[in-house]
Structures are given as structure tokens and as C-alpha cells.
């Protein structure tokens, strides 16, 4: 194994930062190129994020218990000892093969020398080039030379070379000589790179380019990105761009620039629904009347459907209709949207502001070098992802890059337990997520104990309808069985886990009742999920998983029913299982298409609430429609009613387009009841982590630490954490492994320094500190009962110190003097 791989990360947004930090933590020399002057990308413009509606810019950088705190609010900048950061540079080309790659970086943003600059702003004054602000799509124009980021001091100026004409007026105006335009042509070449990670994200759709809703003609038709900027700068009111009057009524129009064959944009950007819901919810707090025009509300995340319900409770109005146009009522400064919320019912609605919910630019393509050998592209650079999924994808991509880089090296046989930190990791569950986690860890020379309840590995991955994905799982299972560092316990279960991170003690019990104690430094919980049960009236009813397996197993020669009715969201996406399971819609669409390919004359009807496909899966939906599948929307208040009669299934439902109640008959009924976690609550109890009401394991931070549980050293992934499709389960497994690997690496490496200590002579064992610690870094020692601090979990907030009445909980000696100055 090479001492330190040299890795290039392209893109300094949330994905790039995460990948870079993970690689740095794994010991790589990391180079990070970001074309803007400041890192964090779009995130810097998002003051509040769904589903918490909170800010998380201080959580982007990882906690560092060693006390070398480089973590900070991203608004204050970025520095990391293991990462060489190239702000203002974009990778133009990559040459060579893995292990010996070279990358050419060219300047995209030129920074003004902040040591010389005295913030006189003369340069900005004289700059003739106006351009859209980085954090909006044009409503707030800035100059080609402007402040590097809204939160940066005025002497941190940057020049966007995309817009700059190099006219030299700013340089001439600067009396301090802080502007060096010659550096605009600066190029850097990075040699001897082992691999590169592409995490530069996607380009957003600019409505003007596609003339969406004639937005260029209306100053008050803006995009969701613009709205973030308005929200960020808003006080009590949000002011509209045209005349600065407070906005009282605002509309969001979904799918601007997507879900359209005319725009050659047959895709869904996946997060715009949530962004609009968030913006509308926040606008409601400012007493703005909010309406969202949508087709399908794609709340496809564990907590997203509940978020939608909350938004509705707050008074956000959802109107299921795609508007044709936005009309300006002259002189009144009103934007009018004629729409037809239900068939035959047309209404006008007036707004002060209309927000177009934009996603990926339909014409956007990843850079040409994205496909080269040695360049690992984060899924976040193929489609739009929310923060949590970006982080998972980035981590997983870093893990993959690292794993492949290390393939040639021999496993480090000497990985052994040191001091209090055991290097072993316990992985519970051997489905796609668990297997991916185990193999990622093993590739990082971490010994793994893999516990699986069944007598074979693979979990639900083995019954995947895609032969490629089945093969992938079989390969993973075979590799896990063979790997020297992976110790597999089939037909076994974990029954207890005690101790702090780095020093867990777990008992596993096999099918014969034998128990064994395992010492491990971290654990990855990947216990998966299963189909929610359906009440079966008779055998002509199948759940979507059964049905899809059946007709796909038949290959192209099999039998498909002559008529089939699908009912999606059957008893799900409502209490008590109020979440989207994310897999059913695309499985249903694939099954529809397979049914028709087996039996072209088959009559296929789908009752749905919202079709939840994302990214390019939208094409599946389009194909299903064009091949004649009939889609009938229903509301959860009036689900279609079922009846079995004469060997046929009868479904009564109303077709809203015809405004008539109809009876549909079919040979086969397919229900999609969603998925439920298999062992969530049980795992939560054993490992002392939180689980949701539905039994999903909960993460420490839904946005920035998605695969970490609230207890340090316990990581969660896959269906046990949230409903995910196969590919994402694999990514989550890798990401969880990457986090575990980083934690152990850090624990093994460092002279651990804690922020706080306990003075046993003063301690009354009252346990207030146990309650106060938000990170479960406090624990009562198993034998002595004395209060102890888990250095891998403690993050130095001081809650334990503050809550302790006689300061038996104290700051560490190094910190004490400083902290107690006031006392």
C-alpha cells in the first residue's frame, strides 16, 4: 500500500468537500479545485434547509475531537490541514492513467490580494461588466468584480473570469496594486495523481435560456435560487425585485425546465418539490400566502412526506395543475396565473411573486473527462441530489476510489488493537448495504465481523429484478466470504452492545444458542427492510415485489395477465407509515412495461397518488404512458375500493378527468404497500441509538451526518435507516464504512485529547451530565459506575460542565484556564 495516495477532488461544494475530507482522513494527499473563490457552492446561499428548516453550515466540516478545530461555519471559510485547496481553479483536462495522472487547472476566478486591498471599492465602481450573482440566477446582478461571497468582508474581492473582459479598469483604479490581472491566465498542473474524484455538481436550468414562462419579461418571476437570496436578505418581509414592495402572495411553479418532451427534458430533478415546500413554509412564517403549482409532489425521502404535511398545516396551498403561462396585469403589478385545479374548473390567481422551481439544465452534460479511467464521478455530478444524498454519494465515491486504488496492495495483516481503540468493525446485516460496507472496510485494511441473520449473504439484493444487480450482490457476497479480513457469522444475531466508541463489546448469538463476545471499535447497522404486509383478499392479489419477481422471472416468454390494476401507495404515505418507500413507483412502471412487452394487448391501469420517480427514471413513466398504461390519480381520502368477484378483481375508482365513477375489472391486482424496516427498533434498543416511530434508525444529523447514528462509533445505512433503492443502499453502505474507517483511523492515530474530564472525588454520580450530553459521550463505567468521557464522541460543547453543579465535570486542564476567565 502506498504511503499516501495523491487524490484530486474537483468541485468544492458539499460533495467535493465531503469527498476531500474523507480522503484526507483516510491518509491521502488531497488537492481540491473549486472554480469559485469560496467553497461550499450553492450551500452558502441556503440559510435554511429542509426537512429541519435549519441552517447547517457549521456542520459541513467534520467534528474533530483532537482539538485541532478547523471546523467552523462555512460562511467564515475553509481550511483543512490535509487538503490543498485551489480556490478559483477549474480542471480543464485530465491526462494519463491511474497512478500517474496529470490534471490541468485553469483560473476561473481571480482573487484580489486581500492583504493589500483596503476595501475602497473603486474597482467595483469602474467595472463595466454586470453579471448574475453566484447565488441567484440573475435577479441580483453584481459586477464581474465583486465580494467573494455575501458573508465575506469587503476586502475579499474576486473577479469572475467567465464574465471579465480583462479590460484592466479595475487594475488601473486600484491604488494599492491589489489586482494582478496577469494571474488570470494562470494555469496549474498537478502531476503524479493516483486518482481524481469529480464532484462538481450539475448546472441549474436558467429559465431565460428556455424562455420558461416568459420569465425574462417579468422581473417578479424568479427562480428558487433567487428566492433563497431574497429570503436570506429579508427582514420581516420579503421584498420583491421589481419595486421593493413586500411580497404578500407568492406562487411556486414546479418542474420549470423539466418533465417536458418539448424541452427535451424528460427528467425529474428530484429535490425541487422539497425546496419549494421549504421556501413556502418559510415564507408562511412571514405571513405570505403561498401556493405551489405541481403535478406530482415528489416527497421521496423518509421524512419528506411528513414535511409536506407540516407545510400544509402551516397553510401552504398545493394546487395540482401545471400552469400554461404567467400573465402580467399591466399597471397593477400583479402576476396572474390562470389554472385549472380540477377538470372543468378554471380559476385565476394573482400573485406578487412567482418562483420557478428549477432543477438540472436539460442541456447539461458532465465534462468529457468524467468517464476516464481513474476519474470517479460522484452521483451528485450526474443529477441533482439533496445535501444528505450528496454527502453519501461523495463519501461512497471516495470509498470506491480509495478501494480501487488499494486493490493491488496486500492487506495489512498487522492491523491490531491498540490501547483502548479496537480496529475491528462489526457489520450487522449482509444485504447490499451491509456487504458494501464490509468490503469497503476490508479494502481499507479494517477487519470486519459480518453478522447475518439468514444462513446466506445477499439479503433482498438476491431477489432484485435486474440481473445485473443480482449479479452484483452475488459477487459482493462471494467476495465477502473469501476476504481474509471479513469474518462471517451467518444465522446469527447481535444481542447486546456496551462500551464507548473504539471499545465496544458486543455479544452475538448463533442459531444453536452459542454466544460469543466481540470487541470492536465501531459498528455498521445494515439490517435492511422488508415489504409491508398486505391484507390479501384472494390470490389474485399480489404485492408489487411478488408481481415484479413473477413477471420478470418469466423472461420474455412468460405469461402476463390480460388485465392488471396497480394501486400505488396502498396504506402508505399516510399515518402510521407516513413516508414514501421510493422503490415501488419505478418497480411498478418497470412491471407495467414488462407486462406489455409480454402481452402487448394487456390492459394496464395504475391508480396512483403521486408518481415518485426521480432523475432519468422519469423516462420510465413517459414510456409507460406512451405504451398505453392508463394512469388514474386518486386522493388518500378516497382510495379506490376493491372487490373480488367471479375470479376477477373489481376496482371502483373515479377518473378525475372524466369526472365519473367507474368500475375496472382485472385478472390481477397489484398493491404497493411500501417497505418497512426489518429490525429497526430492536437494533435501536441493542445499540442504544434512536429510531423513528416507524422503526427506522435515526441519524445524528439528517443533512450532514446521514450515516452516523447519535452514538459515536455506530453507523447506519440502507433500508434500516430509510427507504432506498438498491443503488443508494450500496452507496450508503460504502459511505457508512468510510465514516467508520475515518473514525477508527483517527482513534488509532491520534494522541486523543478530550475537551472535558470528570473529577471523581467531586462527582456525586447524579447523572445530569449523561442527560445533558448531546453526543452520548458520557457513560457510566461498566464496572466502577464512575462517570467517564468517550473521547471519540465528545465534541467539546461544555453542556456537561454547565450542568454539573459543583464542577466535578470540568474542562480539560488545557482548556480550563481560558474557559474560566469569567468565572
Amino acid at each position, binding site marked *: 500500500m502506498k504511503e499516501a495516495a495523491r487524490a484530486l477532488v474537483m468541485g468544492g461544494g458539499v460533495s467535493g468537500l465531503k469527498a476531500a475530507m474523507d480522503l484526507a482522513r483516510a491518509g491521502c494527499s488531497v488537492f481540491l479545485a473549486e472554480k469559485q473563490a469560496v467553497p461550499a457552492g450553492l450551500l452558502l446561499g441556503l440559510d435554511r434547509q429542509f426537512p429541519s428548516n435549519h441552517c447547517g453550515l457549521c456542520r459541513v466540516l467534520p467534528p474533530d475531537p483532537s482539538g485541532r478545530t478547523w471546523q467552523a461555519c462555512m460562511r467564515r471559510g475553509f481550511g483543512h490541514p490535509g487538503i490543498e485547496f485551489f480556490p478559483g481553479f477549474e480542471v480543464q483536462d485530465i491526462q494519463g492513467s491511474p497512478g500517474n495522472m496529470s490534471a490541468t487547472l485553469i483560473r476561473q476566478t481571480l482573487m484580489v490580494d486581500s492583504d493589500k486591498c483596503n476595501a475602497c471599492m473603486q474597482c467595483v465602481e469602474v467595472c463595466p461588466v454586470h453579471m448574475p450573482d453566484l447565488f441567484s440566477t440573475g435577479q441580483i446582478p453584481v459586477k464581474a468584480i465583486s465580494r467573494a461571497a455575501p458573508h465575506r468582508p469587503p476586502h475579499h474581492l474576486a473577479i469572475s473570469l467567465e464574465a471579465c473582459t480583462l479590460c484592466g479598469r479595475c487594475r488601473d483604479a486600484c491604488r494599492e496594486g491589489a489586482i494582478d490581472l496577469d494571474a488570470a491566465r494562470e494555469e496549474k498542473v498537478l502531476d503524479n495523481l493516483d486518482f481524481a474524484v469529480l464532484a462538481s455538481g450539475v448546472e441549474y436550468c436558467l429559465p431565460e435560456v428556455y424562455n420558461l414562462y416568459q420569465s425574462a419579461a417579468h422581473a417578479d418571476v424568479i427562480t428558487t435560487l433567487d428566492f433563497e437570496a431574497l429570503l436570506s436578505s429579508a427582514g420581516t418581509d420579503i421584498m420583491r425585485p421589481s419595486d421593493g414592495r413586500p411580497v404578500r402572495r407568492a406562487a411556486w411553479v414546479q418542474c420549470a425546465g423539466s418533465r417536458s418532451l418539448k424541452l427535451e427534458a424528460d427528467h425529474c430533478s428530484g429535490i425541487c418539490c422539497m425546496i419549494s415546500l421549504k421556501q413556502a413554509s418559510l415564507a408562511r412564517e412571514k405571513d405570505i400566502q403561498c401556493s405551489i403549482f405541481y403535478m406530482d409532489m415528489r416527497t421521496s425521502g423518509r421524512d419528506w412526506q411528513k414535511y409536506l404535511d407540516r407545510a400544509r398545516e402551516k397553510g401552504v396551498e398545493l394546487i395540482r395543475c401545471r400552469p400554461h403561462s404567467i400573465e402580467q396585469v399591466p399597471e397593477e403589478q400583479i402576476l396572474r396565473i390562470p389554472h385549472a385545479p380540477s377538470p372543468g374548473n378554471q380559476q385565476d390567481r394573482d400573485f406578487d411573486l412567482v418562483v420557478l422551481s428549477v432543477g438540472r439544465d436539460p442541456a447539461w452534460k458532465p465534462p468529457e473527462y468524467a468517464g476516464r479511467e481513474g476519474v470517479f464521478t460522484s452521483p451528485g455530478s450526474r443529477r441533482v441530489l439533496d445535501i444528505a444524498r450528496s454527502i453519501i454519494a461523495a463519501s461512497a465515491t471516495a470509498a470506491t476510489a480509495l478501494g480501487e486504488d488499494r486493490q493491488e496492495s496486500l492487506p495489512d495483516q498487522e492491523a491490531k488493537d491498540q490501547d483502548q481503540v479496537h480496529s475491528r468493525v462489526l457489520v450487522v446485516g449482509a444485504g447490499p448495504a451491509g456487504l458494501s460496507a464490509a468490503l469497503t472496510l476490508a479494502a481499507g485494511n479494517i477487519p470486519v465481523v459480518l453478522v447475518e441473520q439468514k444462513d446466506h449473504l445477499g439479503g433482498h439484493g438476491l431477489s432484485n429484478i435486474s440481473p445485473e444487480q443480482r449479479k452484483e450482490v452475488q459477487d459482493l457476497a462471494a467476495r465477502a466470504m473469501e476476504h481474509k479480513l471479513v469474518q462471517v457469522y451467518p444465522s446469527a444475531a447481535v444481542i447486546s452492545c456496551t462500551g464507548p466508541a473504539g471499545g465496544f463489546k458486543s455479544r452475538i448469538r448463533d442459531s444453536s444458542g452459542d454466544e460469543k463476545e466481540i470487541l470492536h471499535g465501531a459498528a455498521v447497522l445494515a439490517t435492511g427492510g422488508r415489504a409491508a404486509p398486505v391484507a390479501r383478499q384472494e390470490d389474485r392479489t399480489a404485492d408489487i415485489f411478488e408481481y415484479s419477481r413473477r413477471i420478470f422471472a418469466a423472461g420474455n416468454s412468460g405469461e402476463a395477465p390480460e388485465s392488471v390494476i396497480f394501486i400505488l401507495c396502498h396504506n402508505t404515505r399516510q399515518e402510521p407509515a407516513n413516508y414514501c418507500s421510493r422503490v415501488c413507483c419505478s418497480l411498478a412502471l418497470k412491471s407495467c412495461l414488462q407486462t406489455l412487452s409480454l402481452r402487448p394487448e394487456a390492459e394496464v391501469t395504475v391508480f396512483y397518488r403521486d408518481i415518485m420517480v426521480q432523475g432519468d427514471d422519469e423516462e420510465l413513466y413517459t414510456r409507460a404512458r406512451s405504451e398505453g398504461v392508463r394512469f388514474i390519480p386518486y386522493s388518500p381520502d378516497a382510495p379506490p375500493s376493491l372487490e373480488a368477484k367471479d375470479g376477477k378483481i373489481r376496482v371502483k375508482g373515479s377518473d378525475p378527468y372524466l369526472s365519473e365513477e367507474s368500475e375496472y375489472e382485472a385478472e390481477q391486482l397489484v398493491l404497493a404497500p411500501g417497505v418497512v424496516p426489518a429490525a429497526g427498533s430492536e437494533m435501536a434498543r441493542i445499540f442504544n441509538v434512536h429510531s423513528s416511530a416507524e422503526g427506522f434508525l435515526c441519524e445524528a444529523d439528517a443533512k450532514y451526518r446521514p450515516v452516523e447514528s447519535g452514538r459515536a462509533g455506530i453507523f447506519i445505512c440502507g433500508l434500516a435507516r430509510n427507504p432506498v433503492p438498491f443503488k443508494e443502499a450500496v452507496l450508503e453502505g460504502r459511505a457508512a464504512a468510510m465514516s467508520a474507517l475515518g473514525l477508527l483511523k483517527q482513534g488509532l492515530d491520534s494522541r486523543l485529547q478530550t475537551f472535558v474530564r470528570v473529577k471523581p472525588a467531586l462527582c456525586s454520580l*447524579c*447523572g445530569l451530565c449523561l442527560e445533558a450530553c448531546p453526543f452520548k459521550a458520557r457513560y457510566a463505567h461498566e464496572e466502577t459506575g464512575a462517570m467517564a468521557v468517550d473521547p471519540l464522541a465528545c465534541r467539546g460543547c461544555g453542556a456537561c460542565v454547565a450542568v454539573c453543579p*459543583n464542577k466535578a465535570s470540568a474542562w480539560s486542564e488545557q482548556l480550563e484556564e481560558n474557559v474560566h476567565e469569567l468565572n
Partner: protein
Amino acid sequence: MHNFSLIETRGDAGKAVSMLLARLLEQNMVQAVIVPAAVPPSVLPMTRLLNNPADLDQTSPLAPVAGVSAATQAAKISRGPQEIKIAAVLRPCEIRALVELHKLNQAQLDNLLVIGLECPGRLENQDYIDLQDQNQDLDQRFYRDEDLQSRIAITCRSCIDFLPENAHLNICVLGLDLDQQAGIAWDEGPGADAARALELKPGQEPGERGRAVDSLRSQRESAREEVMSRSRETISSSSGLQSMIAHCLGCFNCQRACPVCFCRECVCSREAFEQNLEMLHTRAGRTGGIRLPAGMTMFHLTRLAHMAHACVGCGQCSSVCPIHIPVADIFRTVAAATQKELDYKAGRSPEEPIPHLNFSTEGDQ
């Protein structure tokens, strides 16, 4: 409490109760008993741990005195081995303190059979010793002699929480002629188990008791209102507060006597030893120099800040103050305001969480 039974006292109620306790030991309902007992040469009954039924006739469960709050000791001893179950005879304020200590992980309520004592008040220790000299059967006389009752500790005179709560078994004295009968009350659970072991038969509770309780309460309420309003008035300015605590010697007696102040060592007493001399010099340079030991105002305010929510109103702090600072009056006044604000009552229920640990996201600033 739902069940009530009268027991014959034959002129010595204390003895009658002692016999019941002895019987609990004999029946192995408990393996030890905590009860006040004065063992010669002492005349002042102090908390005593006993496990031999024969020793019980030396005890004074009804003595109108509490040398120190028994809660501290009951709490400590309850944290012993689980197989040893202990009956503890406690005053209402002591039970409340015990409940608070339980929340702070200082007591194991599961190990205790709590026997509550209806409390007309306690005499100050010195008063008890003095009166003991004058009255042979002080413990028994106290309950029928209104003059003796009027000499109870100052804090007790305005105490309205004189009925035990959260006990398994109550010893009832109010509205009864203790020379004839005392009452025992209990609810389902451990109390009922004990009552069965004691072969107590549920009977009618004399109506007189209700009237006695009401009359005592109304008398105490008006006394309390008077004390509190006076105290509120006094401490509501810096000079008023200073007038009360200026004489503080810094002995920390109040903190040590406080049954809910659970710290092994008070942060303030430690600081009194670890004075920052440089800081003292700086401050001394300001108007009027600086009083040493420094930090006495901080000490009292710290105790208020830390414990006002948990103050059970036992008055031990006032009782032990060598220069008679009405510490308990200050505390009860602040505690009333604090507990009202936090919608909390010290000792009300073992299940009620400590308000400072309620990190709910609801509500505003």
C-alpha cells in the same frame, strides 16, 4: 390514601408505632429500619439504622424533632445492596427531599418502604433538649399540648405541606387522641403488603381528622403568607438582601444541612479556598474594598440558582445557621417563584423530570 386503620396506643403512641416497625422486621417485610432514636447519654433522637426487632423499643418514631434531615441518610443507605429492603420513617419534607434525591440518582426508592409521618412541626434541637429536661414524656405530650406545639421551629410554623406524600404507609396523628389511638393509612402496592403483614384491618377514618387538617392548613397558610410577603419585600433589593446575608460567616452549614444540596463538595466552598488573589486585589481597589472570604453573595445566589426548584421547605438551613440568618425564608420565597415559573413542585412526584433537563424544542425564547 385509600385505606385507614386505627391502632391502639395505650398512652404511648411512639411505642405503638415502634412495635409495628419491629413487626415489619419480624415478618421480614424489611431487613432494616431507619428511625429516630435517642440512645443514652444522648437525649436527642437521631436517625438510626436498626435491624434487630428487639432494638425497636428504644426508638422515638414520633419525636417532634429532626436532628438533621433524615432524607440524606435514607437516600444514602438506599443505594446499598438491592436485597436489603429498608423501612424509613420520614417527615413529609424529608420524603420530598428523598424524591428529589432520587431524581439526582442519590437514592434508590425501590429499596425503601417509606413510612410517612404526619408532621405538626418539629422543635429546634436545642429547644427539644431543653424541653426534654422539663417534660418526661415530651414526645407523647407534644401531640396534646398546644403550647408545646406553638414552640416548633420557625419554618415549620408556616409550613403547609405537613401531610406526607409519596409514602407507602402513613402514620396519622392529626385529629386523633394519640393517648388512645393513632392512625395508619396506605394505598395499594408495597404499603398494602406491609399493612397485611401488620394485620391491619381497613376501617373508617374519623371525620375529626379532616377538620383538624383543614384548620391546621388555614392557620399555616396565613402564617406562610405573612412570612413570604415580608421576605419577598426584604430581598427584592440588593440592600435588602445584603441586610439579611451580610452577617454570613461562610460556614456552609446551610449547604451541608440542606437535604437536596447533593454535591459531594459545594463548588462555592471550594472556591472559598481557591480565591483568585489577583482578582481580589483588583476588586478591592474599587469602592470600599472587598469582604473576605469573598463570594458569599455568590454562594447564596448559586445555591438559589441550583436548588430553588428543589427546595422542599424543611427549614434545616435556618435551624443550623449560627447567627440566625433566615435562610429558609429566602429560599422558600425564591423557590415559590421558581417552582411556579417552571411549573414544578419539589418532591411532588418521582416521575416528574427535573425541569432543567427539559430540552424541548417547543416554545419561544
